[in-house]
């Protein structure tokens, strides 16, 4: 099974602050990490490889230092890593990014599954994965919490706020995963040391079959007006009375107050 995983190097937002004047992220001195959801995507890929055999390739578009993130993926157990990097790709929004990544994936050639994290923790758009599938003209299932592959059929549990949907798809397929799908493994020491010695190939614009007008800033219709923290979603209410009977009574009262029943 040929599996591709798209990953992004992001600033560790647990340590990042927003400049109140410019509304942009203050990136200085903030450590870079592999986007956490992408680690779940890689873990999902590695688990499928452990079970069905095959090869896992990680791809990232970013500046040269994104090689560090790719090395971490190799240390976790990916077989191969490719960095897609060129000044011409700079300033790309999700459309230009997904266009470029799709071109790189075409260059890789054969694949059965493409994994992405549900979104990156810096931009939080959740658009690049789905857009890659559109560019490639393949099916996609997003927000996946469980995967099973049987021949060329993939059945997944897709996470919704209210519950799960069971969906089936045929390979090739792009899947974006949520955090609850797995717990990413630790890199081993041997693999960490080996990853440090690997020369990661860098694909530039010249290596890809792309239209220059669709790359980077030029190819990006999105303009960021303002960045702000959205209001926190309210937490759920837990009703826990002494007996089930009392709890249900309170629940019924609340539901009828809210005109739901």
């Amino acid at each position, binding site marked *: 099974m040929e599996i591709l995983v798209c990953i992004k190097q992001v600033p560790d937002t647990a340590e990042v602050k927003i400049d109140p004047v410019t509304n942009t992220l203050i990136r200085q001195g903030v450590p870079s990490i592999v986007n956490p959801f992408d680690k779940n995507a890689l873990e999902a890929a590695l688990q499928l490889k452990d079970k069905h055999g095959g090869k896992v390739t990680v791809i990232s578009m970013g500046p040269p230092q994104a090689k560090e993130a790719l090395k971490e993926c190799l240390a976790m157990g990916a077989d191969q890593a490719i960095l897609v990097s060129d000044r011409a790709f700079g300033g790309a929004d999700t459309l230009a990014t997904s266009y470029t990544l799709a071109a790189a994936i075409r260059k890789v050639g054969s694949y059965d599954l493409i994994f992405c994290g549900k979104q990156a923790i810096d931009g939080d758009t959740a658009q690049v994965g789905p857009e890659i599938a559109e560019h490639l003209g393949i099916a996609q299932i997003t927000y996946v919490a469980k995967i099973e592959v049987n021949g060329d059929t993939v059945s997944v549990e897709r996470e919704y706020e209210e519950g799960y949907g069971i969906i089936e798809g045929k390979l090739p397929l792009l899947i974006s995963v949520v955090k609850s799908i797995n717990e990413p493994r630790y*890199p*081993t*020491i041997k693999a*960490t*040391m080996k990853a*440090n010695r690997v020369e990661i190939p860098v694909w530039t614009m010249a290596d890809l079959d792309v239209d220059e007008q669709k790359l980077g800033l030029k190819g990006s219709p999105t303009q960021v007006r303002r960045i702000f923290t959205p209001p926190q979603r309210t937490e759920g209410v837990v009703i826990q009375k002494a007996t089930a009977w009392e709890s249900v009574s309170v629940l019924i009262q609340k539901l009828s107050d809210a005109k739901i029943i």
Partner: protein
Amino acid sequence: MNFELTKEQEDIRNMIRDFAEKSVAPTAAERDEKEYFPREIFNQMGELGILGLPYPEEYGGAGSDFLSYAMAVEEISRVCASTGIGLSVHVSLCSWPIFHYGTEEQKQKFLRPLAEGTKLGAFGLTEPNAGTDASAAITTAVKDGDHYIFNGAKIFNTNGGEAEIEVIFASTDKAAGLKGMSAFIVEKGTPGLSFGKKEVKMGIRSSVQREVFMKDCRIPAANLLGKEGQGFKIAMTALDGGRIGVAAQSLGIAQGALEQAIKYSKERVQFGKPISSNQAIAFKIADMAAKVEGARLLVYRAAYHKSHHLPYSKEAAMAKLVASDAAMSVTTDAVQIFGGYGYTREYPVERMMRDAKITQIYEGTNEVQRMVISGAVLR
């Protein structure tokens, strides 16, 4: 002079810190309370390559160096000193003598599973009447054909009863004194080998120290490490390396306590401001930070010496002396900064202070370290 870590050392450290925080720290307080030895954590460290960090790949190791290993013990001990000492004994005291003095067959048979982490190691030297004075040991090994017959007992055996492989010292020639001591590789399950009570301790409570008994215990002659009579030298050189492990453990405890104290002092508000804005607290933290950093330089230098095949006996003794004293003083100060809360088990500094005390005692008391250091500098 170069104080920078290599990229590889930095990656290894980050990886181990991540592992320590996610897989060791969460259970540290509970394991301390219940005196629970976490074999599962050791198995996981084995899978990740931590148990064979400094040994070559041909013997199942990760092929890194002793500085990375010291940092591993530091990072693990930063969150759990009990797990830190188990790691140190496994790598420094059990695996190293086999790596350094063992035959090719012994390395393949014993070092490989130790380095791969499928088996755990221990080291048996101390006896009830032979602590600092190893010459008072009474365990004997008498040659009988292609076996040695062991009789005697060891105490304070770290990882004892949990470990599958022990390096145990016994006299093969009583009349020769220390020159009659020999080292052997002993496997758990050998008839005549049994384990006694588990020590109930002030600190490092999730680490295990047991009594070991040998009664007519037959050990294959092929398990003799080095030559007959070489045992004392093997023990002393292994302990030189073990001291780097204990020094790194001390450093980790001190670093952990320092971080806890810094965090708490910024959060704890009294008289309308964080206590860190009081100079009495700020200066205490300054002293703690300076002690930790001073200890770190000595520990890393001793490990560097060992990695580069430079003499490290004096360096290891200095690192162990300074780092263990730093651990005791920094953890005590941390408890003071936490005030009443620091004395409770609500916060980890109470455990860290209990854990710190042993570092001044084992792997050679700090008085022994002064004997080693003065012996070297007064020569």
